[in-house]
């Protein structure tokens, strides 16, 4: 049989394949982690780089140790099987050996202890946080079973949740409708009892709708998706309103529990852009990468989906814990600026209160001071506060 048809089929197949690629503007999702074990990394910031480096170093230590230990072990298994009539080596120990195998691991462990401190400090100690001026500040509210995000919008400030009138009305409503369960925070006889911001949770109040109007509010609220610029430090005030949750970004090696009653000051930085803006609508995002589709453990040949980074809840938080994920979109800085403007203008323009209620009712002011305000020059008071 001549060779020609084969080559023809091959060429046709090749052209077809190229055609598919040409039609799909997306690229295959990057799979590169810094090691076989770790998932792809989308952050080139100091901390995740350091974590991956440490991981690899520990892996080297552990591999060498295993080879030595299992080597000796297997040698013993083979060489010292029982032989009739022979006696074992009679020894109770060896001081030199004992000292060596105490000192050597001790040295390695001390080295490890010191090697990981810088990353830990930059991750957790506010004084050691990155000092970039252009940090993006946002607020994260965890709730059973959703992640809610609030970005300050164009004016760079977080607006109050309720208009002044709404507050006054709500207090009145509470006084009339609850039996002393909820105290007025401005009442000096009941200090420390704070439920003012749980007000929107009162069903009747919530449903009346009119309390939500606050014209100068341009904060961007979203549940379940977070849009951040690449290469800017994202600094968040994270709270939980019910149980403990944990904010986990595997691709940035980032994890922090959201602890009720204890606001957390956190930061992370994403580096690899995953989305760009839709050319027509700057509030819409378009994926840069595609990834495989898996159904019931089987890869679906020929199918593709938009690739998007995921945020997970890593701390057991109840029956739907498993569904408490969120999506993370990373834009280039200029794209993000445009997106921010568009979203913020939209938020200020329309009365989006109905949508926002869900996020608002999470707000509780166990601690009115956002953590970074203790470290940085005071920000102007929010209207209505």
């Amino acid at each position, binding site marked *: 049989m001549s060779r020609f048809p084969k080559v023809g089929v091959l060429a046709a197949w090749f052209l077809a394949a190229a055609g598919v690629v040409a039609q799909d503007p997306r690229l295959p999702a990057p799979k590169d982690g810094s090691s076989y074990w770790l998932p792809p990394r989308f952050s080139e910031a100091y901390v995740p780089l350091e974590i991956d480096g440490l991981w690899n170093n520990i892996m080297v230590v552990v591999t060498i140790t295993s080879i030595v230990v299992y080597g000796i072990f297997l040698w013993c298994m083979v060489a010292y099987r029982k032989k009739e009539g022979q006696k074992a080596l009679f020894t109770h*120990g060896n001081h030199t050996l004992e000292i060596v195998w105490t000192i050597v691991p001790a040295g390695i462990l001390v080295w490890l*202890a010191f090697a990981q401190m810088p990353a830990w400090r930059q991750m957790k100690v506010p004084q050691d946080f990155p000092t970039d001026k252009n940090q993006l500040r946002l607020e994260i509210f965890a709730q059973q079973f959703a992640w809610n995000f609030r970005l300050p919008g164009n004016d760079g400030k977080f607006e109050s949740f309720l208009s002044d009138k709404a507050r006054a009305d709500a207090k009145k409503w509470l006084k009339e409708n609850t039996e002393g369960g909820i105290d007025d925070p401005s009442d000096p006889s009941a200090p420390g*009892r704070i439920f003012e911001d749980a007000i929107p949770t009162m069903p009747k109040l919530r449903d009346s709708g009119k309390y939500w109007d606050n014209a100068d509010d341009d904060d961007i609220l979203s549940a379940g998706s977070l849009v951040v610029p690449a290469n800017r430090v994202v600094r968040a005030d994270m709270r939980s309103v019910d149980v403990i949750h944990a904010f986990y970004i595997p691709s940035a090696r980032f994890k922090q529990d959201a602890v009720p009653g204890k606001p957390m000051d956190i930061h992370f930085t994403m580096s690899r852009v995953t989305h760009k803006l839709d050319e027509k609508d700057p509030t819409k995002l378009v994926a840069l990468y595609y990834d495989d589709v898996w159904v019931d453990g089987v890869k679906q040949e020929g199918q593709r989906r938009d690739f*998007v980074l995921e945020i997970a809840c890593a701390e057991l938080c109840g029956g739907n814990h498993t569904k408490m994920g969120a999506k993370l979109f990373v834009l280039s800085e200029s794209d993000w600026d445009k997106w921010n403007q568009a979203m913020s203008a939209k938020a200020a323009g329309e009365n989006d209160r109905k949508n926002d209620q869900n996020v608002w009712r999470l707000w509780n002011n166990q601690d009115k001071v956002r953590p970074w305000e203790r470290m940085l020059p005071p920000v102007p008071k929010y209207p209505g506060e």
Partner: protein
Amino acid sequence: MLLQSGHDTHHKQSFFSTYVWSEDHKMIGKQFMFTALLMYAVGGLLALGVRGQLGWPETAGKFINPIFGWSGDKVPGEGYNMLFTMHASVMIFLVIIPMLNGAFANYVVPLQIGARDMAFPFLNALSYWTYVPAILILASSFFVEGGSGQGGWTSYPPLAEKQWTPGTGQTLWLIGAFTAGASSIMGAVNYITTIVKMRAPGMSFFRMPMTTWAIFITAILQLFSTPVLGSALLMQTTDRVFGSSFFIPDGLAVSGNPVTGIAGGGQVLMWQHIFWFYSHPAVYIMILPAMGIVSDVMACFARKPIFGYKPMVYSIGGIAGLGFVVWGHHMFSSGMNPFLGMTFMVSTMFIALPSAVKTFNWLGTLWGGQITFSSAMLNALSFVTMFVIGGLSGIFCAATSVDMHIHDTYFIVGHIHYVLFGGTTFGIFAGITYWFPKMFGRYMNEGLGKLHWFITFVAFNCVFFPMHILGSQGMMRRVADPYNYEYLKPMLGLNRFMSISAFVLGAAQIIFVFNMLWSMKKGRKVESDNPWKSNSLEWQTPTPPPHGNFPGPVPTVYRGPYEYSSPQVAEDYLPQTTKLPGDSA
């Protein structure tokens, strides 16, 4: 002066006082052993439920839901939470701790130190009869409205508080754990007193076998840490029952509605501190006795003295001491003060050291030995090899910044199973096989023993090693359906493989239990009181040992327990009781 309880006179025992309310440490030991084995089956089945769900999230509910009376086709999230919560609670509070510090401590310690019984036989029986209600209470939680505990074995508030987990199941969990703790404290008091006061003439501390040493130090750990857990459990109980708010801060919401009717002002992290102040020592409570057991078994079947007996003892002591100052390594991501985190990291690094020293000493014990691969020995050797993996994975967890990636993922689940199953459980198999002839006068069947060991060893690694991969890839623990996340969808295949291996692993345990029960009646009879040719005292008394343990006077001890292959005698063992010319107690 040594104290001896008066069991010299043999009086006739009724069925009730022999098998039910027995104050004989040997019978209590057996009671603990069989009860814990029963619980091992329960805990194992719960684990298979967990694995079933992770392997077949769409279909597992069809099989699991009818058992528990849950509605729907898929396992409900709350149901899944119950499965893993009760799996861990049963395994920890009702299997491992009672097996090591109930069964082995009771059966072996008085025999090994040459005591006629425990110092407080009544308290000893009470300890068992407190363990039984603990089981009943925990088990009953499955039958109440809202189901059993579902906050994980760690039961972190606020989730575990009644506002978020209503129903009596969680309260029963607290009371059950409290009761198990009480049983554990009673045992600990007994072991410490017995070991300090009732050793045979010549049995100095540094002539005690490793099992006794390990149980001694474990008992001290239990005595100091368990009451602290008790206080935490009580506080959460009063939160749930009487409406206090030790662990509930102000301003929280339930399904978006504010929590009312409580004082508030509680501290969420306080629970974690108190809980881990117990539960870190508890992980050592769950392994130190097994380390003692495998040391004894390995010396016996390698016919060699333990390499570095004193360093081994000091390592156990070091682990116990450091064990009290490392609890914060479970809280690296909890938001506690980062400088506190750093100190916990340093202390945790150091606790890996005695573990390393022990491993090297076990290797030293094998070196130059005359090794017989009996089924007891195979299990003991598996302890060592698997514990190495568990210890090394601990280093990843101890490195604070690395832990930020793997905390609360399957990596941790891998770590704990390599130490607790790969370690402790193999140690338990080794111990049962080793002391079985003394308990029942018959050997366990070697063929079945080896078959069980082989399947268990292979299946164990197939189930638990991949957990490290899943965890480092970012698969969280305690999620009912990980495949809700796109990035975890490709992991279903691996999970299914692990689940299948888990069923094999579970089935293999039937072999062990069958072997035990069958061998009790039909096993090969021992030809002597010292079938393994061991040195320690439990083998120098009739089989099974009589009431009062030693006929006639208590034996006198002339040397340490590990004089295997001593050049002083022709045989390759030299019992602690043999008096050679020139020996004095």
